[in-house]
Protein backbone atom coordinates (compact mmCIF):
# COMPACT_ATOMS: atom_id res chain seq x y z
CA UNK A 1 0.00 0.00 0.00
CA UNK A 2 1.12 3.53 -0.58
CA UNK A 3 1.97 5.86 2.20
CA UNK A 4 -0.51 8.16 3.86
CA UNK A 5 0.26 11.38 5.66
CA UNK A 6 -0.92 11.07 9.24
CA UNK A 7 -0.44 12.73 12.55
CA UNK A 8 1.69 10.62 14.88
CA UNK A 9 -1.02 10.10 17.45
CA UNK A 10 -3.50 9.03 14.80
CA UNK A 11 -1.04 6.76 13.05
CA UNK A 12 -0.27 5.05 16.33
CA UNK A 13 -3.97 4.60 16.96
CA UNK A 14 -4.51 3.07 13.55
CA UNK A 15 -1.49 0.81 14.05
CA UNK A 16 -3.12 -0.56 17.18
CA UNK A 17 -6.29 -1.30 15.26
CA UNK A 18 -4.23 -3.07 12.61
CA UNK A 19 -2.56 -5.11 15.35
CA UNK A 20 -5.93 -6.45 16.40
CA UNK A 21 -6.26 -4.32 19.49
CA UNK A 22 -9.72 -5.15 20.82
CA UNK A 23 -10.13 -2.44 23.38
CA UNK A 24 -8.83 0.96 24.35
CA UNK A 25 -9.30 2.56 27.74
CA UNK A 26 -7.86 6.00 28.31
CA UNK A 27 -8.20 9.49 29.66
CA UNK A 28 -7.55 12.77 27.81
CA UNK A 29 -4.21 14.49 28.22
CA UNK A 30 -2.11 16.66 25.95
CA UNK A 31 -0.10 15.88 23.81
CA UNK A 32 -1.73 12.53 23.00
CA UNK A 33 -5.37 13.47 22.62
CA UNK A 34 -5.63 12.71 18.92
CA UNK A 35 -4.93 9.08 19.73
CA UNK A 36 -8.05 8.38 21.82
CA UNK A 37 -10.04 10.78 19.65
CA UNK A 38 -9.16 8.76 16.58
CA UNK A 39 -10.03 5.53 18.34
CA UNK A 40 -13.34 6.89 19.66
CA UNK A 41 -14.34 7.30 16.06
CA UNK A 42 -12.78 4.19 14.55
CA UNK A 43 -12.93 1.43 17.14
CA UNK A 44 -16.73 1.19 16.97
CA UNK A 45 -16.47 0.82 13.19
CA UNK A 46 -14.53 -2.39 13.79
CA UNK A 47 -16.87 -3.44 16.59
CA UNK A 48 -14.11 -2.90 19.07
CA UNK A 49 -14.22 -1.23 22.44
CA UNK A 50 -13.43 2.40 23.18
CA UNK A 51 -14.01 3.65 26.70
CA UNK A 52 -13.08 7.06 27.99
CA UNK A 53 -12.33 6.23 31.59
CA UNK A 54 -12.90 8.60 34.49
CA UNK A 55 -9.16 8.79 35.16
CA UNK A 56 -5.83 7.31 34.23
CA UNK A 57 -6.08 5.02 37.22
CA UNK A 58 -9.42 3.68 36.12
CA UNK A 59 -8.08 3.31 32.59
CA UNK A 60 -5.10 1.16 33.56
CA UNK A 61 -7.32 -0.96 35.78
CA UNK A 62 -9.75 -1.46 32.91
CA UNK A 63 -6.78 -2.54 30.85
CA UNK A 64 -5.84 -4.93 33.64
CA UNK A 65 -9.36 -6.34 33.60
CA UNK A 66 -9.64 -6.70 29.84
CA UNK A 67 -6.16 -8.22 29.60
CA UNK A 68 -7.13 -10.72 32.28
CA UNK A 69 -10.12 -11.63 30.17
CA UNK A 70 -7.77 -12.33 27.28
CA UNK A 71 -8.25 -9.25 25.13
CA UNK A 72 -5.56 -7.34 23.27
CA UNK A 73 -5.71 -4.01 24.93
CA UNK A 74 -4.21 -0.54 24.78
CA UNK A 75 -4.03 2.58 26.88
CA UNK A 76 -2.19 5.80 26.23
CA UNK A 77 -1.36 8.86 28.22
CA UNK A 78 1.34 11.39 28.86
CA UNK A 79 3.81 11.80 31.72
CA UNK A 80 1.69 12.81 34.75
CA UNK A 81 -0.99 10.41 33.61
CA UNK A 82 1.58 7.63 33.39
CA UNK A 83 2.71 8.45 36.93
CA UNK A 84 -0.84 7.78 38.06
CA UNK A 85 -0.87 4.42 36.34
CA UNK A 86 2.12 3.06 38.26
CA UNK A 87 0.24 0.92 40.75
CA UNK A 88 -1.85 -0.55 37.95
CA UNK A 89 1.20 -1.25 35.81
CA UNK A 90 2.85 -2.98 38.75
CA UNK A 91 -0.31 -5.08 39.12
CA UNK A 92 -0.20 -6.04 35.46
CA UNK A 93 3.43 -7.10 35.68
CA UNK A 94 2.75 -8.90 38.96
CA UNK A 95 -0.22 -10.75 37.48
CA UNK A 96 1.65 -11.37 34.23
CA UNK A 97 -0.85 -9.64 32.01
CA UNK A 98 -0.01 -8.38 28.54
CA UNK A 99 -1.03 -4.93 27.40
CA UNK A 100 0.37 -1.97 25.52
CA UNK A 101 0.87 1.44 27.09
CA UNK A 102 1.80 4.46 25.03
CA UNK A 103 3.48 7.36 26.81
CA UNK A 104 3.65 10.52 24.70
CA UNK A 105 6.10 12.26 27.00
CA UNK A 106 5.92 15.92 28.00
CA UNK A 107 8.04 18.05 30.31
CA UNK A 108 7.90 17.66 34.08
CA UNK A 109 8.06 17.34 37.00
CA UNK A 110 4.55 17.92 38.28
CA UNK A 111 2.26 19.53 35.76
CA UNK A 112 5.38 20.73 33.93
CA UNK A 113 4.52 21.69 30.37
CA UNK A 114 2.96 20.23 27.27
CA UNK A 115 5.96 20.31 24.96
CA UNK A 116 8.01 17.27 23.89
CA UNK A 117 10.33 15.67 26.40
CA UNK A 118 12.10 12.46 27.36
CA UNK A 119 11.91 13.14 31.07
CA UNK A 120 10.18 9.85 31.88
CA UNK A 121 13.09 7.59 30.98
CA UNK A 122 13.59 6.46 34.54
CA UNK A 123 9.89 6.18 35.27
CA UNK A 124 9.68 3.88 32.26
CA UNK A 125 12.85 1.83 32.51
CA UNK A 126 13.22 1.58 36.28
CA UNK A 127 9.62 0.88 37.16
CA UNK A 128 7.74 3.68 38.84
CA UNK A 129 5.54 1.19 40.63
CA UNK A 130 6.31 -1.03 43.58
CA UNK A 131 8.20 -4.28 43.43
CA UNK A 132 10.69 -6.01 41.19
CA UNK A 133 9.37 -5.72 37.65
CA UNK A 134 10.20 -4.18 34.32
CA UNK A 135 8.40 -3.16 31.17
CA UNK A 136 9.57 -4.09 27.71
CA UNK A 137 10.02 -0.53 26.46
CA UNK A 138 10.29 0.57 22.86
CA UNK A 139 11.36 4.03 21.71
CA UNK A 140 10.70 4.60 18.00
CA UNK A 141 12.21 7.56 16.15
CA UNK A 142 9.88 7.93 13.15
CA UNK A 143 6.18 7.49 12.61
CA UNK A 144 6.90 4.50 10.42
CA UNK A 145 8.89 2.86 13.17
CA UNK A 146 6.25 3.80 15.75
CA UNK A 147 3.59 2.16 13.62
CA UNK A 148 5.66 -0.95 13.02
CA UNK A 149 6.65 -1.35 16.65
CA UNK A 150 3.13 -0.80 17.91
CA UNK A 151 1.88 -3.46 15.55
CA UNK A 152 4.51 -5.82 16.90
CA UNK A 153 4.14 -4.75 20.53
CA UNK A 154 0.87 -6.60 21.04
CA UNK A 155 2.63 -9.80 20.10
CA UNK A 156 5.54 -8.99 22.38
CA UNK A 157 3.20 -8.30 25.28
CA UNK A 158 1.40 -11.58 24.71
CA UNK A 159 4.66 -13.47 24.30
CA UNK A 160 6.10 -12.28 27.60
CA UNK A 161 2.78 -11.89 29.38
CA UNK A 162 4.08 -8.50 30.44
CA UNK A 163 3.08 -4.93 29.66
CA UNK A 164 4.94 -3.23 26.83
CA UNK A 165 5.62 0.50 26.99
CA UNK A 166 5.86 2.58 23.84
CA UNK A 167 7.89 5.62 24.82
CA UNK A 168 7.57 8.48 22.42
CA UNK A 169 8.03 12.17 22.95
CA UNK A 170 5.47 14.81 22.08
CA UNK A 171 7.24 15.40 18.75
CA UNK A 172 6.28 11.97 17.48
CA UNK A 173 2.76 12.37 18.77
CA UNK A 174 2.25 15.72 17.11
CA UNK A 175 4.19 15.50 13.85
CA UNK A 176 2.80 14.33 10.50
CA UNK A 177 4.78 12.02 8.24
CA UNK A 178 3.87 9.73 5.37
CA UNK A 179 3.57 6.23 6.71
CA UNK A 180 2.83 2.78 5.35
CA UNK A 181 0.45 1.11 7.75
CA UNK A 182 0.56 -2.29 6.14
CA UNK A 183 4.22 -3.11 6.31
CA UNK A 184 4.92 -6.63 7.49
CA UNK A 185 6.18 -6.84 11.03
CA UNK A 186 7.68 -9.88 12.78
CA UNK A 187 5.11 -12.31 14.13
CA UNK A 188 5.93 -13.84 17.48
CA UNK A 189 5.23 -17.45 18.29
CA UNK A 190 2.32 -17.20 20.67
CA UNK A 191 0.81 -19.87 22.84
CA UNK A 192 -2.96 -20.00 23.31
CA UNK A 193 -4.10 -17.97 26.32
CA UNK A 194 -5.19 -20.80 28.57
CA UNK A 195 -4.84 -18.68 31.68
CA UNK A 196 -7.55 -16.11 31.06
CA UNK A 197 -10.37 -15.38 33.47
CA UNK A 198 -13.17 -14.28 31.18
CA UNK A 199 -15.92 -16.07 32.99
CA UNK A 200 -16.34 -18.89 30.56
CA UNK A 201 -15.57 -22.08 32.50
CA UNK A 202 -17.86 -24.38 30.60
CA UNK A 203 -14.97 -26.33 29.16
CA UNK A 204 -12.14 -25.66 31.52
CA UNK A 205 -11.25 -25.25 35.18
CA UNK A 206 -11.61 -21.86 36.77
CA UNK A 207 -8.77 -19.40 36.31
CA UNK A 208 -7.55 -16.74 38.69
CA UNK A 209 -5.71 -13.55 37.85
CA UNK A 210 -3.80 -12.43 40.87
CA UNK A 211 -0.62 -10.83 42.17
CA UNK A 212 -1.08 -11.61 45.87
CA UNK A 213 1.13 -14.26 47.45
CA UNK A 214 0.82 -14.15 51.20
CA UNK A 215 3.36 -16.92 51.73
CA UNK A 216 6.81 -15.32 51.32
CA UNK A 217 8.24 -18.42 49.69
CA UNK A 218 5.48 -18.38 47.08
CA UNK A 219 6.12 -14.70 46.46
CA UNK A 220 9.84 -15.30 46.14
CA UNK A 221 9.23 -18.10 43.66
CA UNK A 222 6.91 -15.82 41.73
CA UNK A 223 9.51 -13.06 41.70
CA UNK A 224 12.13 -15.47 40.45
CA UNK A 225 9.82 -16.51 37.66
CA UNK A 226 9.35 -12.89 36.69
CA UNK A 227 13.07 -12.26 36.90
CA UNK A 228 13.70 -15.06 34.44
CA UNK A 229 11.45 -13.25 32.02
CA UNK A 230 13.35 -10.00 32.41
CA UNK A 231 16.65 -11.84 32.12
CA UNK A 232 15.39 -13.40 28.91
CA UNK A 233 14.50 -9.95 27.59
CA UNK A 234 17.96 -8.74 28.52
CA UNK A 235 19.69 -11.72 26.99
CA UNK A 236 17.85 -12.03 23.71
CA UNK A 237 15.67 -9.06 22.99
CA UNK A 238 17.80 -5.95 23.06
CA UNK A 239 17.26 -3.78 20.00
CA UNK A 240 19.31 -0.94 18.65
CA UNK A 241 20.59 0.60 15.47
CA UNK A 242 24.10 1.62 14.46
CA UNK A 243 24.25 4.58 12.11
CA UNK A 244 27.39 5.63 10.30
CA UNK A 245 29.41 3.56 12.71
CA UNK A 246 32.23 2.47 10.45
CA UNK A 247 35.47 4.01 11.65
CA UNK A 248 33.54 6.41 13.85
CA UNK A 249 35.73 8.34 16.25
CA UNK A 250 32.86 9.56 18.36
CA UNK A 251 29.42 8.05 18.92
CA UNK A 252 26.24 9.87 19.79
CA UNK A 253 23.84 7.83 21.89
CA UNK A 254 20.30 9.05 21.44
CA UNK A 255 16.83 7.56 21.11
CA UNK A 256 13.49 8.68 19.75
CA UNK A 257 13.25 12.05 18.02
CA UNK A 258 16.61 13.07 19.36
CA UNK A 259 18.33 10.44 17.24
CA UNK A 260 16.80 12.08 14.17
CA UNK A 261 18.32 15.36 15.12
CA UNK A 262 21.59 13.54 15.65
CA UNK A 263 21.25 12.13 12.12
CA UNK A 264 21.14 15.67 10.76
CA UNK A 265 24.07 16.58 12.96
CA UNK A 266 26.32 13.80 11.69
CA UNK A 267 25.72 14.92 8.11
CA UNK A 268 27.11 18.33 8.96
CA UNK A 269 29.91 16.75 10.95
CA UNK A 270 30.82 14.51 8.07
CA UNK A 271 31.13 17.59 5.86
CA UNK A 272 33.58 18.86 8.45
CA UNK A 273 35.50 15.61 8.19
CA UNK A 274 34.42 14.24 11.54
CA UNK A 275 33.42 10.60 11.70
CA UNK A 276 30.52 10.53 14.08
CA UNK A 277 28.37 7.46 14.51
CA UNK A 278 25.06 7.03 16.28
CA UNK A 279 24.02 4.26 18.62
CA UNK A 280 20.27 4.41 18.72
CA UNK A 281 18.61 2.32 21.43
CA UNK A 282 15.30 0.99 20.16
CA UNK A 283 14.57 -0.87 23.36
CA UNK A 284 15.29 1.27 26.39
CA UNK A 285 14.41 -1.72 28.53
CA UNK A 286 16.18 -4.05 28.00
CA UNK A 287 18.93 -1.54 27.42
CA UNK A 288 21.07 -2.44 24.39
CA UNK A 289 24.16 -3.11 26.43
CA UNK A 290 25.39 -5.53 23.81
CA UNK A 291 25.80 -2.72 21.33
CA UNK A 292 28.60 -1.24 23.38
CA UNK A 293 30.80 -4.27 22.96
CA UNK A 294 30.30 -4.02 19.22
CA UNK A 295 31.40 -0.43 18.89
CA UNK A 296 34.37 -0.16 16.52
CA UNK A 297 37.71 0.26 18.18
CA UNK A 298 38.09 3.60 16.47
CA UNK A 299 35.56 5.09 18.88
CA UNK A 300 37.23 7.38 21.37
CA UNK A 301 34.27 9.23 22.85
CA UNK A 302 30.61 8.81 23.65
CA UNK A 303 28.12 11.66 23.67
CA UNK A 304 24.69 11.11 25.19
CA UNK A 305 22.03 13.47 23.91
CA UNK A 306 18.62 13.56 25.53
CA UNK A 307 15.61 15.72 26.16
CA UNK A 308 16.16 15.27 29.90
CA UNK A 309 18.82 16.19 32.43
CA UNK A 310 20.59 12.94 31.66
CA UNK A 311 18.38 10.09 32.69
CA UNK A 312 19.89 7.59 30.24
CA UNK A 313 23.39 8.22 31.60
CA UNK A 314 23.12 5.48 34.21
CA UNK A 315 22.50 2.90 31.51
CA UNK A 316 25.32 4.20 29.37
CA UNK A 317 27.75 4.14 32.27
CA UNK A 318 26.71 0.61 33.17
CA UNK A 319 27.03 -0.54 29.56
CA UNK A 320 30.27 1.27 28.85
CA UNK A 321 32.53 -1.62 29.69
CA UNK A 322 35.32 -0.24 27.61
CA UNK A 323 35.41 2.81 29.83
CA UNK A 324 35.17 5.38 27.06
CA UNK A 325 34.82 8.99 28.15
CA UNK A 326 31.15 9.96 28.26
CA UNK A 327 29.85 13.47 27.59
CA UNK A 328 26.32 14.67 27.86
CA UNK A 329 24.15 17.23 26.15
CA UNK A 330 20.54 17.72 27.11
CA UNK A 331 17.72 20.17 26.70
CA UNK A 332 14.68 19.92 28.89
CA UNK A 333 11.25 21.31 29.56
CA UNK A 334 10.01 20.99 26.02
CA UNK A 335 13.02 22.47 24.31
CA UNK A 336 14.25 20.28 21.51
CA UNK A 337 18.02 20.16 20.97
CA UNK A 338 19.01 21.84 17.74
CA UNK A 339 21.20 20.22 15.13
CA UNK A 340 23.77 22.98 15.50
CA UNK A 341 23.96 22.51 19.25
CA UNK A 342 24.81 18.86 18.81
CA UNK A 343 27.35 19.63 16.13
CA UNK A 344 28.98 22.16 18.39
CA UNK A 345 29.05 19.76 21.31
CA UNK A 346 30.72 17.10 19.18
CA UNK A 347 33.27 19.58 17.91
CA UNK A 348 33.99 20.60 21.46
CA UNK A 349 34.65 16.99 22.39
CA UNK A 350 36.68 15.87 19.43
CA UNK A 351 38.55 19.15 19.63
CA UNK A 352 39.46 17.88 23.07
CA UNK A 353 38.28 21.05 24.70
CA UNK A 354 36.17 19.46 27.38
CA UNK A 355 35.68 15.94 28.63
CA UNK A 356 33.33 15.05 31.43
Amino acid at each position, binding site marked *: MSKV*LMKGNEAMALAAIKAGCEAFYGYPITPQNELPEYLSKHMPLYNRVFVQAESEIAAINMVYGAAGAGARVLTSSSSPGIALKQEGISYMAGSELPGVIINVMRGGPGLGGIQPSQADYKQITRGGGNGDYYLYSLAPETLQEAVDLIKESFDIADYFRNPVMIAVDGLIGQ*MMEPVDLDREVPKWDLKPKTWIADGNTKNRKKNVINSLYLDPQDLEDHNMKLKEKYDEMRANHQRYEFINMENAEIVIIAYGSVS*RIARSAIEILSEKGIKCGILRPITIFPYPKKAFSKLPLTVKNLLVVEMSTGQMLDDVIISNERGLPISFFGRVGGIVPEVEEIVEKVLEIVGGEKHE
Partner: protein
Amino acid sequence: MISEKVIIAGFGGQGVMLMGQLLSYTATAKDLNTLWFPSYGPETRGGTANCSITISESNVNSPVISTPDSIIIMNKPSLDKFQPKLKSGGHLFLNTSLVKDVVLREDVNVHNVDANDIAIELGNLKVANMVMLGAYLEVTKVFDAESVLKVLKKKFTGSKASLIEINKEALEAGKKAVL
Protein backbone atom coordinates in the same frame (compact mmCIF):
# COMPACT_ATOMS: atom_id res chain seq x y z
CA MET B 1 16.50 17.65 -5.96
CA ILE B 2 13.70 19.11 -3.84
CA SER B 3 14.71 19.99 -0.34
CA GLU B 4 12.61 22.66 1.28
CA LYS B 5 12.28 23.74 4.88
CA VAL B 6 9.60 26.24 5.63
CA ILE B 7 8.15 27.67 8.81
CA ILE B 8 4.66 29.18 8.82
CA ALA B 9 3.70 31.29 11.81
CA GLY B 10 0.88 33.48 13.03
CA PHE B 11 -1.95 33.84 15.54
CA GLY B 12 -4.00 30.81 16.43
CA GLY B 13 -6.99 30.85 14.10
CA GLN B 14 -5.18 32.26 11.07
CA GLY B 15 -4.98 28.82 9.52
CA VAL B 16 -1.21 28.44 9.63
CA MET B 17 -1.47 24.74 10.54
CA LEU B 18 -3.68 23.96 7.58
CA MET B 19 -1.35 25.78 5.21
CA GLY B 20 1.52 23.62 6.36
CA GLN B 21 -0.47 20.42 6.23
CA LEU B 22 -1.49 21.17 2.66
CA LEU B 23 2.16 21.33 1.71
CA SER B 24 2.87 18.01 3.39
CA TYR B 25 -0.19 16.34 1.86
CA THR B 26 0.88 17.53 -1.55
CA ALA B 27 4.38 16.19 -0.95
CA THR B 28 2.98 12.84 0.09
CA ALA B 29 0.80 12.70 -3.00
CA LYS B 30 3.96 13.20 -5.02
CA ASP B 31 5.70 10.41 -3.07
CA LEU B 32 8.17 12.80 -1.54
CA ASN B 33 9.36 12.58 2.04
CA THR B 34 7.89 15.19 4.27
CA LEU B 35 7.40 16.10 7.89
CA TRP B 36 5.01 18.58 9.44
CA PHE B 37 5.42 19.66 13.00
CA PRO B 38 3.21 22.06 14.95
CA SER B 39 4.15 24.24 17.84
CA TYR B 40 1.78 26.22 20.00
CA GLY B 41 2.80 29.15 22.14
CA PRO B 42 2.63 29.06 25.90
CA GLU B 43 -0.78 30.72 25.92
CA THR B 44 -3.78 28.45 25.96
CA ARG B 45 -5.87 30.54 23.61
CA GLY B 46 -5.33 33.23 21.05
CA GLY B 47 -1.59 32.98 21.29
CA THR B 48 0.88 32.36 18.55
CA ALA B 49 1.20 29.14 16.66
CA ASN B 50 3.57 27.88 14.02
CA CYS B 51 4.43 24.82 12.06
CA SER B 52 7.57 23.54 10.40
CA ILE B 53 7.39 21.65 7.13
CA THR B 54 10.23 19.76 5.57
CA ILE B 55 9.90 18.40 2.06
CA SER B 56 12.67 16.29 0.66
CA GLU B 57 13.54 13.57 -1.81
CA SER B 58 15.81 11.95 0.73
CA ASN B 59 14.92 10.97 4.30
CA VAL B 60 13.76 13.66 6.63
CA ASN B 61 15.80 13.64 9.78
CA SER B 62 15.44 16.42 12.33
CA PRO B 63 11.78 17.37 12.73
CA VAL B 64 12.85 20.79 13.98
CA ILE B 65 14.04 23.37 11.54
CA SER B 66 16.84 25.55 12.80
CA THR B 67 17.48 27.41 9.54
CA PRO B 68 14.42 27.57 7.31
CA ASP B 69 14.68 28.16 3.58
CA SER B 70 11.45 30.17 3.71
CA ILE B 71 9.22 31.64 6.35
CA ILE B 72 5.59 32.69 6.00
CA ILE B 73 4.78 35.32 8.58
CA MET B 74 1.20 36.16 9.46
CA ASN B 75 1.70 38.52 12.41
CA LYS B 76 4.23 40.69 14.19
CA PRO B 77 5.35 38.38 17.05
CA SER B 78 6.09 35.68 14.48
CA LEU B 79 8.28 38.00 12.49
CA ASP B 80 10.30 38.82 15.59
CA LYS B 81 10.69 35.16 16.39
CA PHE B 82 11.55 33.70 13.01
CA GLN B 83 13.17 36.39 10.90
CA PRO B 84 16.54 35.86 12.63
CA LYS B 85 16.47 32.15 11.77
CA LEU B 86 15.78 32.51 8.07
CA LYS B 87 18.74 31.38 6.01
CA SER B 88 20.64 34.05 4.20
CA GLY B 89 19.16 34.37 0.73
CA GLY B 90 15.94 32.74 1.88
CA HIS B 91 12.39 33.92 1.27
CA LEU B 92 10.33 35.90 3.74
CA PHE B 93 6.61 36.10 2.98
CA LEU B 94 5.01 38.84 4.99
CA ASN B 95 1.32 39.46 5.66
CA THR B 96 1.58 43.19 5.31
CA SER B 97 -2.07 43.65 6.20
CA LEU B 98 -1.08 43.01 9.79
CA VAL B 99 2.67 43.56 9.88
CA LYS B 100 3.61 47.09 9.04
CA ASP B 101 6.49 49.42 9.72
CA VAL B 102 8.99 46.75 10.63
CA VAL B 103 12.70 46.39 10.17
CA LEU B 104 13.56 43.64 7.73
CA ARG B 105 16.81 41.81 7.03
CA GLU B 106 18.67 42.90 3.95
CA ASP B 107 20.12 39.49 3.07
CA VAL B 108 16.79 37.81 2.41
CA ASN B 109 14.09 38.09 -0.25
CA VAL B 110 11.07 39.81 1.20
CA HIS B 111 7.66 39.26 -0.41
CA ASN B 112 4.96 41.58 0.86
CA VAL B 113 1.40 40.34 0.57
CA ASP B 114 -1.65 42.23 1.87
CA ALA B 115 -3.19 38.91 2.61
CA ASN B 116 -5.98 40.02 4.94
CA ASP B 117 -7.06 42.80 2.67
CA ILE B 118 -7.01 40.55 -0.36
CA ALA B 119 -8.97 37.90 1.50
CA ILE B 120 -11.60 40.38 2.65
CA GLU B 121 -11.87 41.55 -0.91
CA LEU B 122 -12.45 37.95 -1.96
CA GLY B 123 -15.23 37.82 0.60
CA ASN B 124 -13.75 35.75 3.45
CA LEU B 125 -11.01 36.84 5.83
CA LYS B 126 -10.35 33.16 6.57
CA VAL B 127 -8.64 32.58 3.24
CA ALA B 128 -5.80 34.98 4.02
CA ASN B 129 -3.69 31.89 4.61
CA MET B 130 -4.38 30.63 1.10
CA VAL B 131 -3.41 33.98 -0.32
CA MET B 132 -0.05 33.66 1.42
CA LEU B 133 0.28 30.09 0.21
CA GLY B 134 -0.40 31.17 -3.35
CA ALA B 135 2.38 33.73 -3.10
CA TYR B 136 4.73 31.17 -1.57
CA LEU B 137 4.11 28.60 -4.29
CA GLU B 138 4.56 31.17 -7.00
CA VAL B 139 7.93 32.30 -5.68
CA THR B 140 9.47 29.01 -4.53
CA LYS B 141 7.93 26.75 -7.16
CA VAL B 142 7.99 23.91 -4.65
CA PHE B 143 4.70 22.73 -6.15
CA ASP B 144 2.32 24.21 -8.63
CA ALA B 145 -0.93 25.54 -7.22
CA GLU B 146 -2.80 22.88 -9.17
CA SER B 147 -1.31 20.06 -7.09
CA VAL B 148 -2.20 21.82 -3.86
CA LEU B 149 -5.70 22.42 -5.09
CA LYS B 150 -6.06 18.74 -5.88
CA VAL B 151 -5.25 17.87 -2.32
CA LEU B 152 -7.60 20.53 -1.07
CA LYS B 153 -10.40 19.04 -3.10
CA LYS B 154 -9.79 15.68 -1.48
CA LYS B 155 -9.82 17.15 2.01
CA PHE B 156 -12.74 19.54 1.57
CA THR B 157 -15.69 17.26 1.08
CA GLY B 158 -19.30 17.52 2.14
CA SER B 159 -20.31 20.91 3.45
CA LYS B 160 -16.80 22.20 3.00
CA ALA B 161 -16.82 21.54 -0.74
CA SER B 162 -18.37 24.94 -1.32
CA LEU B 163 -15.21 26.53 0.01
CA ILE B 164 -12.99 25.13 -2.72
CA GLU B 165 -13.80 27.87 -5.17
CA ILE B 166 -12.83 30.73 -2.90
CA ASN B 167 -9.67 28.93 -1.84
CA LYS B 168 -8.74 28.55 -5.45
CA GLU B 169 -9.30 32.26 -5.99
CA ALA B 170 -7.20 33.01 -2.95
CA LEU B 171 -4.30 30.94 -4.26
CA GLU B 172 -4.59 32.80 -7.55
CA ALA B 173 -4.73 36.17 -5.85
CA GLY B 174 -1.65 35.35 -3.81
CA LYS B 175 0.19 34.37 -6.93
CA LYS B 176 -0.71 37.67 -8.54
CA ALA B 177 0.36 39.60 -5.46
CA VAL B 178 3.97 38.55 -6.02
CA LEU B 179 4.04 38.63 -9.77
